[in-house]
Every structure is written in C-alpha cells, then in structure tokens.
C-alpha cells in the first residue's frame, strides 16, 4: 500500500494515560500499591446498568455494553477500602496528584481550569465498581517544543485490573492517572510515535510517575480522508505505536476499497435471517451440531469480500464477528472461508441452496442459543451495512503485533455526568505560579554529558534511572561522577544481568559504601561484590566485611611479603615489570579491601628489596 500519508489524508492524535506515583489514591486514602491476587482478603459481586446523562441521554457505548447482563466479581485487599467497593462516597481530590498534573500542564504551557469539576465518565464494562470513572479536566491548550498541540490534560482514576473476563482486582482502582490528549495534529505514523515518546519524557521528568509495564498506556485516534475517527485503546509498547497507525491506515484504505467494490457490484444485504439449524444436525463441526439454533444471512454479490484481508490477520469477517460477539456468541462462519472447521462441501452447498445463494453471494451463519443468535445476526447485518458507508467510527483494542479488533462504539458526551460527591477545586493563579518546573530529562542528559563527562548512552541511563536523585546527591557531596555512575548504574546493570535482584539495594546503602570508598576504607574494586552482598539483604557493614574484610597495613605487608617471596624468581626475571602481574595477585587476595595505591606502594618497596638482594 501507499506510504504517502499526506495523500491519504492521515490525521492522528494521541491520548497518554500515565499512573502517578502518589502516596494515596485519587479519591480515598488507600496506598497506590499493586497486589498479587493471592493476597486478596475478600470478594464480592455486582451487576451494572447504563444510566442516562444529566441531559437525559443514554450513551451509545454504554448501551451496547448492556446487551448482555453480566455479573462482575471483585477481589478486595487490606490495601483497599469501601471507596473502591463503591460502598462509601469519595474523599476530596488528592491534592498531591493535582499538583503533579498542574506541573505537567505548566511544562506544556497550558491554561489551568479556574475551577476543576470532577465528572463521572460512564464505563460499564465492570472495570469500575461504580460504573463510572471519575475524571476532571485540569488544563487546556498547550504545545510541545516539537510543535504538537496538547488539547487537554485530565486527572482521572485508574480502573480495576481485569484478571479475566468479568473478574477484577481492586488494588489498581483509584490510582491517580494523568490523561494527556493531543489535538488531531499528527500526520505520519512516525510523528505519532515521536510525540508519544516526547510526552513520555516529560512525564518521567517529574520523577513522580509510576514505572513499569502497564503504568503507561497510549490511546491513538486516527482517521484518513473519507475514513472515520477510530480510537485504539491500550497500546502499551511505545515502539509499536507507528505500526499501529500504519495498520489502521491500511485497514481504513482496505475498507474504503471494499466500499467501492460493493457499489460497483451492486451488492446488497438481506434483511431477514433464515433458520438453517436442521442442515447441520449431523455436522462434523461440533459447534454447529450442538447449537440449539443456527441462523444464516445472505450478502448478495459479496463473495470474496467478507474474507478479504484488511489488516494482517484481520478480514471484514473478523469485524462482523467482533460485532456478533457483543451478544455472547463465540463468532461466525462465512462461505468465503468454508468448507473448513469441520464443515464439509456438501453442507456448504445445501446452505447456499437454502438461501438461494449464487456463487457471487456470501452467506454468514451464527450458532448458539436462539436469543443470542437473533441478537448476533442483527449485529452482523448492522456491520455489513456499515461496509457500504466505509469506515465505522469505533473504539478498538490493540491485538498482538499491532492489528486491532472492535471494542464498542465511540462514546459521546452523553457518558459524562457530574460527580456530585466531590467538591469543585479552585486553582488560584498563585498556586499555579508557585509550581516548580522540573528539569526535563533531555536537558539532564545533556548536563550529565557536559558536567560529569558521561557518554550519551550512560547519561541517558542515569537520567531515566530511579536512582537519579541519589546519584546527584553523592556527587554534590564530593564523590567523583564516574564512581557514582558505576555505583548507581553500570555495576547494578551488570549484576542485574547476572540475575541478582538489585531492586533490594537501597540508595542510602550505596551512599554509605561510596563514602567508605571515598575515605579510603574500602577499595573501589570491592564495589561489585559489596553490592551483591547488599542485594542478598546484608547491611552495609556486613557486606563490606564479607566482600572486603578489613586488612590492616601490617597484615597487608605480610601478605605482600609472602606473595613476593613465593614469586622471587619471577621478579628477578622480569625486574620492575613484575609489579603489574603481582599487583593483580595481591588485589585478588585482599579482595579489594585495600586501596590499590597503598598496595602498589608497599609492593614496589617489597619488589625493590628483592631486586636489591643478590
């Protein structure tokens, strides 16, 4: 396909959701800790149903979620409370979280909202016990240095973590989340990815966001000329963003081509499904044989189009199947892909005959309980009719590799309702003015290179490191940058590669070790073994003792004398050039617990004595 995105009229925007690393959740006093499901202390279940907006409208997306009545189960923990359970009104908005969001807004040159109103955004997929996500618009109209426009910044609560299907864990619910939305100002897949990276850098620069997989999620809004706006949810890997954009553009192009083909052929969709249950009573396809009902619909002059690929691994049929699944069915079969899945040629022939289908037509069947079947076939007809319009406006979810599947219709403004249990928050100009702008990581990298002489890669590693502030503190206290970097970065990376759990090493302990090295108590060569001992849970003194036992100058002299005596032949042979190799032997024996300079001095003296004696 064409790579000329300007010609395609590609328009994209991005929404970034990032968890904030606050002490407490957004609307309760629970800690923002993620738990293991095994640690749960209780469970309950609920049903949710769509409610109307204060304008009296029902949101389309919510309405579609209501097609099936589902029971949602939730796990509770000793770190969750009645607010997560939707059993207590929310506490006032967490001001620590608001300050972080306002700071980011300030970095992006945005205008803060004078009085912040918390809203309820209807979400009835079970991920919020209340059936809504609390969200507040905090600032508007900003711009990134690269030129991308930031439309809005919101402060939201994180949803519950889905364990499976309708089963959720409440530990994550309510963690503060910043949502940064760009305007539809991006026009190439690369621009989308670069903008996401830049926003990610700004977020990390605050030092107050959560880290790790799942703590940041990107939603991408995208359309092409004559296509339609599609929102792709939950892209977690930054590197996949451009691919997702490419594939969505490709999908929209393919759907537009199908639209043209449908028109050219004079295709049409039958309105009335046909009950074909009896045709498959002896089928080798277990799904069909066991189904209490099988309904079929004919798509006139559509042969080949339902099976046509529109994205890697996705066909028009996959789209119809996604719509049908909303009714609880497992999927559908279409004649573009049959015979297959246990359905034999004769069955296809009789199916086509039952619907008076010609070879130019396509027949789609669904098999399930009658109610589900009827619901699903209606959805299939709906989606088939949309193919004549081209690209439907949709919310989609990302699949592995960067293709996407239909989730629900795009929500409208009707899903917003005021959160009546939370007071509005005034943001005074003084409060906004007093917020300190953090150094951007890009600037930190440049500074580390210039001031500390680090290479770009090492400077980058250090700037993005969680140990960055400890690193800067020890340098300020007089430790050499190269040593500080080794302690807080390179050595830890090496140990981590060896499978050592470096997260157990506290910054303060590293500081203690660095002070000891600086004052000459320990040699810097002992850094690596000491850090490993710390990782095993040893205290700094213990770690030093084990990794580098104290050697007095007397003991050192004796060790050196012994080693030199043992190697006197070698020394006589090599002369002063023997110092280097023997130095290595000594250092190995004292395991770095003595400064190399001291060893070197004593060793030289000892060697010269050997050389002097005949």
């Amino acid at each position, binding site marked *: 396909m064409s790579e000329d995105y300007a010609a395609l009229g590609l328009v994209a925007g991005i929404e970034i959701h990032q968890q904030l690393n606050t002490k407490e959740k957004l609307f309760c006093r629970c800690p923002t800790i993620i738990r293991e499901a095994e640690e749960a202390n209780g469970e309950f*279940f609920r049903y949710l149903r769509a409610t109307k907006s204060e304008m*009296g409208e029902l949101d389309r997306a919510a309405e579609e979620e209501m097609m099936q009545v589902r029971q949602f189960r939730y796990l509770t923990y000793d770190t969750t409370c009645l607010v997560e359970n939707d059993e207590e009104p929310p506490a006032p908005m967490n001001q620590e979280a608001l300050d972080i969001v306002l700071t980011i807004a300030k970095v992006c040159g945005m205008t803060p909202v004078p009085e912040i*109103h918390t809203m309820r955004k209807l979400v009835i997929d079970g991920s919020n016990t209340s059936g809504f996500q609390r969200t507040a618009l905090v600032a508007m109209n900003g711009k990134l240095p690269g030129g991308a426009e930031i439309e809005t910044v919101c402060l939201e609560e994180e949803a519950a973590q889905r364990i499976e299907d309708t089963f959720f864990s409440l530990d994550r619910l309510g963690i503060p989340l910043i949502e940064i939305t760009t305007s539809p100002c991006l026009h190439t897949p690369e621009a989308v990815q670069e903008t996401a990276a830049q926003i990610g850098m700004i977020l990390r620069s605050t030092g107050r966001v959560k880290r790790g997989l799942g703590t940041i999620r990107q939603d991408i809004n995208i359309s092409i000329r004559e296509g339609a706006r599609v929102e792709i949810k939950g892209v977690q890997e930054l590197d996949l963003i451009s691919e997702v954009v490419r594939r969505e553009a490709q999908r929209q192009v393919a759907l537009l081509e199908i639209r043209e083909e449908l028109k050219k052929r004079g295709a049409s969709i039958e309105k009335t499904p046909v009950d074909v249950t009896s045709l498959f009573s002896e089928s080798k396809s277990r799904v069909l044989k066991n189904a209490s009902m099988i309904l079929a619909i004919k798509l006139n002059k559509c042969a080949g189009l339902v099976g046509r690929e529109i994205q890697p691994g996705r066909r028009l049929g996959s789209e119809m199947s996604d719509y049908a699944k909303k009714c609880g069915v497992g999927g559908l079969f279409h004649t573009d892909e049959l015979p297959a899945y246990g359905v034999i040629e004769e069955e296809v022939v009789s199916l086509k005959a039952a619907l008076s289908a010609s070879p130019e037509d396509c027949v789609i069947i669904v098999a399930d309980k009658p109610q589900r079947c009827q619901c699903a076939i209606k959805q299939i007809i709906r989606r088939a009719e949309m193919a004549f319009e081209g690209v439907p406006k949709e919310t989609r979810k990302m699949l592995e590799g960067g293709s996407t599947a239909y989730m629900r219709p795009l929500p409208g403004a009707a899903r*917003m309702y005021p959160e*009546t249990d939370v007071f509005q928050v005034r943001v005074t100009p003084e409060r906004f003015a007093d917020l300190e702008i953090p150094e951007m990581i890009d600037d930190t990298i440049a500074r580390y290179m210039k001031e500390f002489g680090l290479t770009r890669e090492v400077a980058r590693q250090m700037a993005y490191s969680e140990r960055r502030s400890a690193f800067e503190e020890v340098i300020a206290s007089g430790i050499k940058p190269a040593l500080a970097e080794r302690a807080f970065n390179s050595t830890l990376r090496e140990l981590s590669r060896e499978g050592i759990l470096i997260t157990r090493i506290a910054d303060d302990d590293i500081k203690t070790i660095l002070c000891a090295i600086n004052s000459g108590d320990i040699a810097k060569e002992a850094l690596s073994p000491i850090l490993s001992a710390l990782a095993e849970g040893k205290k700094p003194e213990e770690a030093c003792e084990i990794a580098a036992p104290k050697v007095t100058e007397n003991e050192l002299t004796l060790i050196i004398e012994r080693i030199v005596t043992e190697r006197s032949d070698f020394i006589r042979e090599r002369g002063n050039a023997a110092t280097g190799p023997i130095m290595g032997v000594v250092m190995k024996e004292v395991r770095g617990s003595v400064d190399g300079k001291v060893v070197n001095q004593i060793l030289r003296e000892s060697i010269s004595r050997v050389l002097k004696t005949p």
Partner: protein
Amino acid sequence: MSELLETGDNVRCTLQGSSCEGTYIASRNGMATVKLTSGYNIGIPIEALTKNGSSEMTEPKVLEVTQDKTLPCISIVSTGGTIASKIDYRTGAVTSQFRATDILNAIPGLASLAQFRAVQLCNILSENMTPAIWQQLARAIHDEIKAGAQGILVTHGTDTMAYSAAAVSFMLKTPVPVVFVGSQRSADRPSSDNVMNGMCAAKTALSDLGEVVVVMHGSTSDDSCAIHRGTRVRKMHTSKRDAFQTIGQEKLGNIVYPSLEVTLSPHAIRRGASELILKDNLEEKCGVVWYYPGMDPKILSAWDGYKGIVLAGTGLGHVGTEIISKIQDMIASGTMVIMTSQCLHGRVCDRVYDTGRDLLSVGVIEGEDLLPEVALVKLMWVLGNSKSQEEARNLMTHNIAGEISWRSAE
C-alpha cells in the same frame, strides 16, 4: 453577562488568551459551570463568558410505561430519597426530584411484576421527615389498601426510614405487605442498589407477608435482599448497601437476586392475619435524651412540658445518680420516662444496680429490648392513643407491633 445567560446557551469562554466553547449550565458565587463539547464540566468566572447562541437544550424525554392489566396491583407511595434522586444544579448536590412514575422508568423490571399505582406523598430527603408526614403516610397507605392494593411499596430516604417504618407499624394494622425501600447509592449511577432493592421490595409486596417491613440489600454483593420488621430495624452503617440490620431478632426473610425468590421466616406475620385498622394519633411532644457521663441535670429542663421522654441510658439502662432527682421531678409533673440502652443489643434491666433501682423507684419504665428510636415512636403513638397514664404505661410495657421480644435469643 450572567443575567443574560440561560441554561443551555452556547457560550465562548476566554481564559488567558486561550478559548473554548461550551454550554452554559448554571452559576454560583461568580463561577459559571460550563459543559464543553467533550462532556466535561469546568468552572469559569462568569465574566469570562460571552453568549454565542441560544439554548438548544431539550427536555429529557419521559417514557410512558405500559402496564399489564392482568398483573396484581401494587401501590407505590413515594416520599423521595436516594432511590429516586439526581443532580440539582442549584446546589450541585444530589436531591430527590423524581415523581413516583419516574421510579417505574428508573427500575424497568418493575412493570413485569405488577401493575403499579403511584401516589406521591412528598419529595423530601428523609432527614426532613416529621411525625406529621408519618401520619399522612399511614393514611395514604391505609387508603391504598382499602382501595384494593395487594401490597404497598414506600420509597423512602434511608436516613430515617427505620423511624417511619416503626411509626407506620404502630399506626396501621395491615393485612398486606407494606414494604419500605430505599437505596444507599444514588439512582443516577450504574452501580446503584435501587434496581435490586426495588425489584426485591416489589416481590415482597406481592408475597405472603402481612406486616410493615424494610427491604434492603442483605450483603455487599448483589446476591440477596433482607426483609426486616419495621419495629426491629436499624440503619447501622452510613454508606454500605447492607446498612440495614434487624437488631435482637431473626430477620423476617430474604429475596434471592436476580431470581427474586422470596423466603419468609416462621415468625413473619402472614398476609391476611390482621385486619386493616388505622389509628393515626401521635403525641409529638416526645423526645430522646442520650445520656453521657457528667451530663448536666439542667439540660433536662429543656424538656419540661414534654409528655414523654425516652432515655438512651448506659449499659443495662442507667444514668448518673446526679440527674435522677431531675427525672423524678419530670415524672411528677406528668412526663412519662422510658429507659432504653445505648448498647442497642440486649434488654434493659434496672433491678441489678443501685442507680437502676433508684430509677425504678422514681417511676422510670424499663423499655425492655426496645430500640431507642422505636421507643420514641411508640411513646408518641401510645400517648396519642391512651386515655390515661395507666393505660399508656401498660401499652409501653406490652408488645404491640413486634417491637418487644419477650425472650432474648442473642
């Protein structure tokens, strides 16, 4: 600018050089609420708004509910409360605004259970209830039963629902179920308990029950509702769905959700066991005094002239010796004084300790295992319907509507 703006007007907001468009909603204290096209509301100083166009708001559509004439008839008497509440832009908080018919819209499943007649008695949050409204409520329920209702649903705010249920229990002998129902989470949220409580309550109103009850969530899950006797029920939590508990008795039954299967306990009074009788007099000059250590006897003077006082005493039913002589004076001047316990669970016994005996000797009546607020409502009813002090005293110490258990099972 503000006086020219009407709810629904299109406005342009200008803020520090940047601007946006939205719909004007309301304003308070110089701050206007504007709904942006994204659906977000923001607060903006009113002077930052300029009118762009006129209101395009349409009245929310109210769907007419078609009723199945073959189904049994239930009357809904609505008084307001969370079960039928939504946002009020005047205060920004939740208020009750729905009419009784709106409840049928809010709980779509109801129409398949019965045909409903709607009576809107009032539309208040339950903290604004008064004994006078209890009386109107009892009369309205009486009239509906007389007119043929096979069950009554009373929608009520949860805060004082137990008081109202107790009041109706004393004023009305009923052959059919009179079911009080409310919700703890407002009806405008997808997780509201109004649907489940409403459905379970309606099913209870159709059941074989024949007394005044409260039906609310039985646990935090949406698994079942509990049926509580109107004179033994108490709101025991500020916000949880299962806040309502029967105290000192077994509950009267439960309703499984979503199957709506009703199970009644053996001690629940059955449909038709009582005749329909309304005795709606109440003596409003009654009050509850919560005793606390060191309480100044002078405080009790504020109650002078009251016909009845319920004391919520400590433990087995005590107050400090200091205030007993004041209580004696009050009783001498014609105030009936009933002792209950702050423990809520268990029976009053003033025969164990000296202060208790002193209280009995000055004429305080032991309130058995009456809940303090139920004792208050009962006292109002007893004093309103007795011809003599003696008769009142007698009624106070006898069970009238399941409010006293003679055996303490727990």
